């Protein structure tokens, strides 16, 4: 199977969907002539032209809203946020318009739009440019939220997101763009709302998604050397959430750690932790442990910024805790 980068997987997904449906357009800052700030849209402007791959001014609220309006009227826009940090400027459009339009019009309007861009900490970018903001979106009914961690998942989920008749927030990661993985030739779709078991194990369930998957995989490899077999549940979709897959795993392992690079309070991690506690209560041998980022804005200093985020050591420690080894 061909091995390609996460970045190329996203580009292939957009390319295939643009070729398939002329209503699909891409708009955002630097997406066209510059081929994307992170080169995700490389070549698309050459191929589809300025009518379909559109450079916008630096006006997130404006072009996000323009995308939503176009979607209400029948286009299927992909709006690229250069980074999700800048989407904060456009939150009104996403939350008050995209997420509400169908409901408050009694089902008259669909908003088939994808908002995508890199989310979460990168390196040396400090407080305003290095944030994991998924919670803001996951909180909102009327949105779907997807956060794939592998090239394979990224491609299949982005294609599904583009075909979905609802607004989908598609969260990537600057540091993930050069990650490589197998992606088959030819078309495939991954349904939104399905988690994936990335590693099977009997001893403990580690629920995670997006960039921390690598950290969790490393921790699992290390734990295996110590005789502990972790099962890794990669959520892939955050809303809707695949509760069944999580519960099935926890019922098998009886222990659960959730790893999430956003802040601890009111997070995907805290929500999953609560759901597992509630729905797997009789199966749990230990309270659920969470590994999140520290509850502070991101510092610039590299040593501090690494200390803020989930790490292999922190994951191992949490696993040891639910196994009463520390």
């Amino acid at each position: 199977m061909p091995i390609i980068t996460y970045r190329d997987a996203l580009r292939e997904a957009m390319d295939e969907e643009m070729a398939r449906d002329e209503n699909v357009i891409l708009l955002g800052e630097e997406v066209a002539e510059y081929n994307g700030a992170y080169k995700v849209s490389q070549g698309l402007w050459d191929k589809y032209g300025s009518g379909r791959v559109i450079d916008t001014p630096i006006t997130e609220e404006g072009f996000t809203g323009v995308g939503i309006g176009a979607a209400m009227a029948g286009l299927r826009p992909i709006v690229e946020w250069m980074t999700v940090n800048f989407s904060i400027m456009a939150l009104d459009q996403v939350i008050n318009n995209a997420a509400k339009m169908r409901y408050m019009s009694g089902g008259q309007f669909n908003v088939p739009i994808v908002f995508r861009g890199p989310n979460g900490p990168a390196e040396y970018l400090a407080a305003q440019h290095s944030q994991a903001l998924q919670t803001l979106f996951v909180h909102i009914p009327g949105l779907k939220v997807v956060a794939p961690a592998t090239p394979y998942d990224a491609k299949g989920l982005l294609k599904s997101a583009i075909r979905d008749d609802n607004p989908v927030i598609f969260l990537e990661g600057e540091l993930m763009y050069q990650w490589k993985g197998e992606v088959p030739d030819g078309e495939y779709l991954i349904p939104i709302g399905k988690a994936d078991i990335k590693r099977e194990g009997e001893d403990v369930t580690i629920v995670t998604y997006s960039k921390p998957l690598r950290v969790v995989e490393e921790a699992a490899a290390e734990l295996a050397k110590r005789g502990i077999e972790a099962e890794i549940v990669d959520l892939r979709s955050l809303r809707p959430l695949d509760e069944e897959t999580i519960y099935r795993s926890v019922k098998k392992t009886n222990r659960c750690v959730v790893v999430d690079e956003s802040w601890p309070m009111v997070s995907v991690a805290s929500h999953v932790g609560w759901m597992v506690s509630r729905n797997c209560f009789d199966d749990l041998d230990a309270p659920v442990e969470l590994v999140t980022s520290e509850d502070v804005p991101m510092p610039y200093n590299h040593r501090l910024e690494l200390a803020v985020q989930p790490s292999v050591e922190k994951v191992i420690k949490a696993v040891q805790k639910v196994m009463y080894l520390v």
Partner: protein
Amino acid sequence: MSRVFTIEKYSREFLIDLLKKMILIRRFEEKAGQMYGLQKIGGFCHLYIGQEAVAVGSIAALDLSEDYVLTTYRDHGHALACGMDPKVLMAELYGKITGCSKGKGGSMHLFDVENHMYGGHGIVGSHIPLATGVALKLKYKGEAGVVACYFGDGAIHQGSFHESLNMAKIWDLPIVYICENNQYGMGTNYERISSVRDFYKMGRSYGIPGKQVDGMNVLEVYEEMLQAVRIARESGLSSFLEIKTYRYRGHSMSDPAKYRTREELDEYRQQDPILLFKDALIEYGIISEDDYKAMDNECKVISNNAAEFAEMSEEPGLETLYEDVLA
């Protein structure tokens, strides 16, 4: 473009100070670029090379004991022009505890509350209302100061700019909005994404007078700023300057800047704000070529010392992580 330098109006000390500040920014930025290459500095690092006359000329018209400066992530030049210590700035770029923001802000977030340098802001357009709010405070308290708010040609389309100008006008706030039109927002030429060619006209729809200024002429920048500051100080009114300039380097260290031609860059290098001013000062007998070389060397030494100071400084300890989250 023919440029006039009104050298005769100013004292030798003043003129030399302007030149020296520009050279210091240039050398500091070159050092920062070099240290970025050596991975002493990470992340986004936006150099100010080519734009020195804007910060130096305009901040020279301020009195920072009562005036205020707010700018973008491309903030090293403004910080130096505000008189911040190059050592403390470089230490911040290195992420050291001795940096102005204790290593937590980095290149994009330089702050100095005492010198009235109110940042160093990373979100395009986001600080324009903040600057307007500082002006509101000045008016509310009946203080004499003026706010200088810098932003790029890319930022001017954000709602925050337009909302701010309207408020500044209806409340008559003492602020000078300064668009540093270096012609590119990242890889996009301003003409490609703007319905208006001459930004200085944009203030007029809010009743705020605007002027286009040659950003390669430090004295012209100074004089236009002086006027705008006087209007703000004496009449409490806002104004808007579009200062035409150019950045020699890429948007940040990771941008190869392939969207512009070699010829275009060379054309601007011919109008280098430092060399133009130096030549004028030599022509008027204010300095000699040797004086210039001595100044240049001094600025190189200051920049090297800054890097050395940053290198020798400690990193912030892990115990600082939870410091300064809340007051």
